[in-house]
């Protein structure tokens, strides 16, 4: 019989157990922080009526949205991001939900892009949103969550913040016509990438472009930036910064950057972006305030604020930072098995009952084979009980990494393993050394158009 080639689609991945251990570690850290701030998880369907997804992201987005007819002739689309499915979800469920409503969502999304390094067709996003309040407390809380997540993941980072209202006011003040706002902001947003001259070149048709750029460029400190813009209405930024202080956010994490624009079309108030201080790493998350996200699905207007974390990029960067060096598979101990198999099974039962992740070698075999198995799976402890140990009521633990062996009283085995303190994680110093190494550019950003 002709065999089917065991292939997968381009831009999708098989995750090995170790990959999953790393991903779960990060996902659980992110999830714990979301939950700490009162966000509850929701999920939305993977297959959706095409009209609820298509037409929300511009022509390019339409082209990149997976859509097809199912067997019943219905047009189906796969989610392109988590924001639109959430808007649809809230529009159909808001009457039964508390207001404001805080949710987090960690799910796969799909984009029919040309696969390349760091650009996949199937990947995860982690979003939080607070919808149903326009109070700046929600914006500040969102930034607090960003800071807590990035701190927890050991990034050296800052959060850039700005107000869309403020940019609009400044541009209007310089006589920029409203229909040009988008192109001006898009150009200014590239300041760090293409430099001042590049931006000015793109703004060649705009009057006062040099002055505009000078006005928007952040100064050395937030205070100086605020002072330089004192003739504009800064109440939103000032209230936000004052909230930050009350929420215990350290100044060093916040950079007021009047150039920051982010996904210009639907953001209407505060915008923010978590960026790594390592310039090669770039953006880790981004979000902001939107006034009418559900407008495409219902008549009611709901103001909300949220942020999306680029999960796949975060994983790639953490790998580069060496954060996964200590990640292992689930088994902490392998119980060897020889002639006296009942003894091994008793130890197995005892250790699992004590809450220790472990496994027993599935059949009596040579010690060499059993150790090789432990090595291949990266299991740190191998439990050996030969006739000597049984006679003296002892047990020998072999430490796979050091090769050392230790014999202890049998009764102490569970306690020993439970209370074994293993050095996890690395020093900031080591991380800095790794981070300084040249990195491949990674592109996963998507701009709403």
């Amino acid at each position, binding site marked *: 019989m002709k065999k089917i080639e065991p292939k997968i689609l381009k831009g999708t991945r098989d995750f090995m157990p170790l990959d999953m251990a790393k991903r779960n570690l990060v996902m659980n850290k992110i999830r714990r922080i979301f939950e700490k701030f009162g966000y509850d998880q929701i999920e939305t369907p993977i297959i959706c009526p095409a009209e609820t997804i298509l037409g929300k992201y511009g022509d390019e987005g339409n082209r990149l949205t997976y859509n097809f007819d199912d067997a019943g002739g219905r047009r189906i689309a796969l989610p392109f991001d988590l924001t639109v499915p959430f808007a649809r979800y809230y529009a159909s469920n808001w009457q039964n939900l508390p207001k404001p409503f805080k949710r987090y969502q960690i799910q796969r999304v799909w984009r029919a892009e040309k696969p390349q390094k760091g650009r996949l067709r199937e990947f995860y996003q982690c979003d939080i949103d607070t919808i149903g309040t326009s109070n700046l407390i929600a914006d500040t809380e969102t930034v607090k969550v960003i800071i807590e997540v990035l701190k927890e993941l050991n990034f050296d980072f800052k959060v850039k913040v700005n107000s869309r209202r403020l940019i609009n006011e400044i541009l209007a003040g310089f006589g920029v016509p409203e229909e040009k706002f988008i192109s001006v902001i898009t150009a200014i947003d590239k300041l760090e990438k293409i430099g001042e001259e590049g931006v000015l070149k793109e703004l060649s048709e705009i009057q006062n472009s040099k002055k505009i750029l000078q006005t928007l460029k952040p100064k050395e400190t937030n205070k100086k930036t605020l002072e330089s813009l004192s003739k504009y209405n800064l109440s939103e930024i000032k209230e936000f910064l004052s909230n930050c202080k009350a929420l215990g956010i350290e100044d060093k994490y916040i950079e007021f950057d009047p150039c920051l624009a982010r996904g210009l079309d639907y953001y209407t108030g505060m915008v923010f972006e978590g960026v790594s201080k390592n310039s090669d790493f770039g953006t880790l998350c981004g979000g902001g305030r939107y006034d009418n996200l559900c407008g495409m699905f219902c008549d009611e207007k709901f103001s909300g604020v949220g942020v999306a974390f680029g999960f796949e990029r975060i994983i790639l960067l953490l790998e580069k930072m060496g954060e996964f060096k200590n990640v292992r598979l689930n088994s902490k101990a392998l119980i060897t098995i020889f002639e006296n198999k009942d003894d091994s099974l008793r130890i197995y039962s005892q250790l699992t009952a004590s809450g220790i992740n472990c496994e027993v070698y599935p059949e009596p075999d040579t010690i060499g084979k059993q150790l090789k198995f432990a090595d291949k799976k990266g299991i740190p402890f191998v439990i050996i009980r030969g006739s000597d140990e049984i006679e003296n009521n002892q047990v020998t633990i072999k430490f796979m990494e050091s090769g050392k062996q230790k014999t202890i009283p049998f009764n102490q085995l569970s306690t020993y393993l439970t209370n074994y303190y293993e*050095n996890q994680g690395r020093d900031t110093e080591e991380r800095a050394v790794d981070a300084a190494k040249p990195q491949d550019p990674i592109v996963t950003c998507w701009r709403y158009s």
Partner: protein
Amino acid sequence: MTQPSLKILSSLVGDIAEAILVRNSDIPVYVDSGVADFGIVGENVLFEQDCRLPVVAKLGFGKCSLVIAAPKKIQNLSEERIATSYPNTLKKYLKKNRINASIIKINGSVEICPGLGLCDAICDITQTGRTLKENRLKVIEKIMDSEAVLISSPNLSQDKKMKFERLLTQLK
């Protein structure tokens, strides 16, 4: 501390404050929660509890060291069983020195554990080193020096802060 020390303490603080005597490891809880406005406690206890309460003064008594000690045959702590009443401090030490070991939490008489076969080394406080010697234990490393310190509760009222200053002069 025994009852006479409460007497001494009460006479020291006089009518400025009321003294209460509690288990040393509970002192940070009383002070942090504001039930007591300040407390006298060993630095080793603060370190063990990761207590961030402000230390107002070092008091110069109750001096001791937190050490790791073991019978002569133990040269290297890696993979060994270490008994202690200070598991968090020991963890920090192991982390800093990149040692993997098993920690056995014991509430008292830690020094007798190696001789009884419960552990291979101990992490405990010592003043003169006599107890260690009696149990044939040799200090492998000193983790920290400690003495009694005065800690204060956060968010004290102005009035209490002033009383506190007076008390501080008296204690010194």
